[in-house]
Structures are given as C-alpha cells and as structure tokens.
C-alpha cells in the first residue's frame, strides 16, 4: 500500500513572547534571530511534539494514543496547519508529494476540507450556531467549487442532493428535515454525525478524528464506532484517529502509535500492541484499563516544559536501569514494530 502522508521529525514548540518579537523582527532581522534563540532558552519554551515520525498509508486507520497533554492533538493540528501563529513547527509533513509545511496559506486552504478533513472533539462547538445544518454541510461544496460552469440554480439543487446523500450516509432517514435544523437544537450525538457528514462530504483522502469519543457515554461511543466502520467500508478514506480511549482504538485502528510526553514510544499493529505491548508505558497503560483490573502507573506525567533527562518515562518506570536516566533512547524498528526503549529488543 502507498504511503499517503509521511511525517518526518516533526517538532512543535510554543513560545511565550512571540508577538512582541515579531514586530521587532521586521526592523532588525539578523540580530533578532540570534536573540530569539537566546530567548528561547530563557523563557520556558514548551516543545509539545519532538522528533515525531510517522506515516499513514492509504485507506489505513492509524490511531494516535496517549494521555491528556502528551501532544497528540498538536500533531493533528500541525497536519492541518491549524496551529496558532505563535507555534513553531519544524520537520516535514509530506502529503501527495508536497510538503504541507512549505505550502502557502492559500494553497493549504485548497487542500483543507477537500483532501484532508478533520473532526473536532466537541461537535456542538465546531458547528456554527447561527447557520443551519444544511447550510454548513453544503459549505465545503461551495468553497471548493465542485460544479464549475453550471447555473446557480442547478448548483444549488445538486448541492442539496449531495448534502442529503451525506446525511443519509450518517444515518438520517429524512435528511431534508434536518437540513433546516440548527446545531443548538440537536443533541451532541447528532451534531457529531453532522460534523462527520460535513467533513466527509467531499470524500477526503485523509480524515483526522481528534478525540471523537471524548465525553461520550458508552452507547454513543459504540454508535460512533459504527459510524467510522461504515465510513471505512464505503469510502477510500484513510483515518488518523486521535484518542485516549484504548478500547475504542482497539476496535477501529489498523495500527496504533502510543505517545508519551511529546514523543512516540511505540508503534505497532493493533493486535500485536494490545496482545504484547513492549514499552513499559504501553504496558502500564493497558494495565490500568478496567478489564485488567485498574492497575495504576505510579507517578505523574512530566511537564513538557521540562521533560526529564534520559528516557522520558524513567521516573515512573518499574524496570528502569541506570542508562535510562542518562541517555535518551531512540525509536528502534523491528518487524513492523517500533519501540523507544533500551530494554526492548
């Protein structure tokens, strides 16, 4: 299978005093660069994602798993180039032969929604409260001008039928009624489905789902699961699933990447990961699941502004050695699995 999206050495950092620098930058370019690097060290820069390399194949479902604050959402936004201006993104994100990070905003805008779509975790907030569902679903069609050279009326009816189709696909039997609804009139689950319909209406090549199951109760999560399964069956879309819900991920993903403190610690096929986790963190994570008896990992995740030296997991690791505390392990690949641990083969 072809590689659809390849991320290499992605580094994302946030800096405290960006805007002020920016203004001054213009006047004294060269000098500033020096100053900036200096400042970076002084004012605690947060490196949310460091040296992240990952690739997604066509039609594949890749899950990015990790705890709150490990930087997984940052990856999603970095791919879409939706990060706030004060973030600094380095590395390459290659998509269809183009480096997304090198594109101009206008070119990027053309890709967004058409080639790459995203589903945010809070669907009720992601939909504009003052426009009707139909209007918002049809918007990608309008933006990306699918039907060029046709009459306005025709365009409209065509858009309407497309929207109706999309709504049907996510399980609304009478789409025309729902098209006149507003997000605030509908439940979170319905909005979730509207959002999926809006994001997939142009059949993107890559769909990013950012914590889609967060805050949903059990029934809704299984509904959502069916949604995604259906989507995978019906379309060619590859899915980047970002979640902290391991059960959810296990049922959907083809491959899973586990993140800890801004780094990937393990990548593996879903089945092999869940059956034989290698990295101590992955093991701990799986052990704290209900079905394994809520065995907790001791300690807390480190703050990203000052990650511990050596292996970032070592303070909480129960099998750590001396070198874990000093050296930073590399991601080692073998048999289609990759682990960032000295102790794993």
């Amino acid at each position, binding site marked *: 299978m072809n590689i659809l999206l390849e991320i290499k050495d992605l580094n994302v950092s946030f800096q405290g005093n960006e*805007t002020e620098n920016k*203004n001054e930058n213009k006047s004294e370019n060269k000098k500033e660069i020096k100053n900036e690097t200096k400042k970076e060290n002084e004012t605690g820069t947060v490196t949310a994602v460091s040296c992240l390399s990952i690739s997604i194949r066509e039609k594949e479902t890749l899950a990015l798993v990790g705890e709150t604050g490990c930087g997984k959402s940052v990856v999603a936004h970095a791919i*879409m180039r*939706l990060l706030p201006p004060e973030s600094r993104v380095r590395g390459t994100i290659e998509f269809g032969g183009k480096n997304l990070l090198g594109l101009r*905003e*206008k070119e*990027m*805008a*053309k*890709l*967004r*929604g*058409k080639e790459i*779509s*995203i589903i*945010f975790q*809070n669907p009720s*907030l*992601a*939909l*504009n*409260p*003052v*426009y*009707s569902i139909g209007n918002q679903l049809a*918007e*990608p069609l309008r*933006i*990306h001008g699918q039907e060029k050279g046709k009459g306005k009326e025709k365009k409209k009816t065509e858009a309407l039928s497309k929207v109706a189709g999309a709504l049907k696909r996510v399980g609304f039997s009478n789409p025309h009624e729902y098209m006149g609804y*507003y997000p*605030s*009139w509908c439940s979170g689950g319905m909005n979730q489905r509207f*959002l999926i319909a*809006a994001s997939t209406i142009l059949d993107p090549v890559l769909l990013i789902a950012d914590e889609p199951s967060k805050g949903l109760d059990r029934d809704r999560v299984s509904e959502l699961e069916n949604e995604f399964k259906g989507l995978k069956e019906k379309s060619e879309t590859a899915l980047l699933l970002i979640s902290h819900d391991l059960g959810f991920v296990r049922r959907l993903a083809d491959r899973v990447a586990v993140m800890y403190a801004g780094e990937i610690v393990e990548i593996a096929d879903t089945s092999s990961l869940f059956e034989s986790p290698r990295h101590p963190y992955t093991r701990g994570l799986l052990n704290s699941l209900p079905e394994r008896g809520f065995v907790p990992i001791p300690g807390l995740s480190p703050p990203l502004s000052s990650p511990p030296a050596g292996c970032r997991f070592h303070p909480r690791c129960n099998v750590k050695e001396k070198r874990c505390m000093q050296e930073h392990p590399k991601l080692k690949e073998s048999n289609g699995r990759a682990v960032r641990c000295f102790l794993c083969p």
Partner: protein
Amino acid sequence: MREGLKKVVRYAASFFLIVTLNFALPRLMPGDPVKNLIGEDVYVSEGVMEELRAGMGLDRPLYEQFTAYIGDLLRLDLGYSYHLHSPVADILRDRIGWTLLFVGVSVLLGTALGTLLGAYAGWKPETKANRLACCGFITLSCTPPYFLALLCLEIFAFKLGLFPFKGFYDVPTPGSIAHHMFLPVTVMALFSASRNFLIMRGSVIQEKGQLYALYARAKGLYDTSILFRHVIKNASLPIITLLALDFGFLFSGALFTEIVFSLNGMGTLIYDAIIGKDYPVLQGSFLVIALAVLLANMLADLLYEVADPRVRRPA
C-alpha cells in the same frame, strides 16, 4: 411560553414604572409652575394665579392627578403645554420626526461604520491601522459629546466655514437639509460608531477563538472569508441588544448635539422644558423616549429570536 409571559410581565412593569416616574418626577421639582408660565416682571394678583393653577390641575390631590393622568394617557392625550401653547402630543409629533431622522441616520451610519471597522479590527487586532482605529474610537468614546460637538462646530463651521451653524435647513430642500445635518449627524454617528466599534471588536476577538471558526478554516476557508462567512454573524448578535440600549443613549446624546447646533428637535424641547418647568412637555417627551427605548428593546428581543437559533429552539 413561561419565558414569553415573564417578558410580557417585565415589559408591563417597565411601562408602569416609566409612567409613574414620569408622573412623579416633574411634580417633585421646586418652583411654582404658574409663575413660570406668566413670565418675569409681570404683576398678577393672587386670585388670577389660583385660577391658573386650578386650570392646570395642580391644586388637586396627587392621586386624583394621577388617575386623571392615566386616563388622559389612554386617550393619547399627553396634556397641554402652556409654554408652547399647544397640545404636547402635537408638539412631540412635530419634533420627533426631525429627531428620529437625525438619530436614525446617525445610528444607521454609526452602526454600519462601527460594526464593519470593529469586525475588521477584531480580526486583525495587531495591524497598525486597526490599532490606530482602536485608539481613535476609545478616545471618542471617552470625550463628552458636547465637547466634541462644539469642537466640530468651531473647526468645520467657524474656522473652515464649510457648514452652517444652526437649524435643520435654510430652505426646506434635501440639499440644504443634508448640508445642515452633516455636522450633527457626523458627531452623533461617530459616537454611535465608537460604541459599536469597541463591542464588535471585542466580540470578534472572542468569537474568532471559537471552535467553529477553526473548523471553518479546516473546511478550506481562509482569512477574511472566515470573518465574513462565519464570525461576523455570531459576533454581531450582541450589537442587536446594544442597539436597543443605545437608542436611549443616542436620544440623550441628541440632546447635547441639538443644543449645540440649535436644532429644533426633542433634545432642545426637553432642555427648554427643564428650564421652563414645562411639566407636560417633560412628561410627554420622557414618556415618548422611554417608550421608544422599550419598543426598541422589544424589537431587539424579537430580532434576536430571529437571528439566533439558540433562542428559538422549537419545543
């Protein structure tokens, strides 16, 4: 249903309070209205004074005056002005047209200007032009209205001689009216704009951080098209409420502007009525303004319901 009923009760209470205030306030003012009526340096016997006082109904007990007042109100009779020698309703009808024209045009211009500039300034708050606009509008909103009006008058009408000093017109032609109204309308519109600008700017800054704005970007919209297609409609919702409240503010602003530009509108009417203790006119104009504001609020409520689907959620 419950909400609606509550609103009705609330508006009714407002109405009643306004009417009561309206009745009570002018009567509490010191000074003998009859003496004011006759004018300075005129000798009138006590008997005549009493007669006049009786004619104005001021010697009756208060509650009787009040019931009479309510009765008159229901007949749309706002009383009779002894200063201006005509029924108050007529005077108001005569004056309010001009003030409405004046205030209306100012509000429209001010809102349009303030909202658009504010939206843009909120979208890109860091650009120089927007910062400048922001500073300018803050300064405007912090200047007493009459001071600005007088400065404008001095600079544009006196020093530069571009505009006339007073009146709605020389000859009642559209050209003359436009020429005369330009300065006062500009002053008022700037005030209205400064308020709308600040609100809109804050509102846009807040709204553009919402998730739907980010999602709009993720859909493929970029830059100002996000502002115009998504943010602006949400951000302008507070403006609706503001416009209604602003209505009262602008009426008061009109008062100062009208005095400075010698405009024969509601503002000068009120001012003269205060000076002359012209109770009926005071009552009438306060009532009309308060009702206008009340009406504007009701309208805003309705408009809000149309504009914001969150409010008109079907049962």
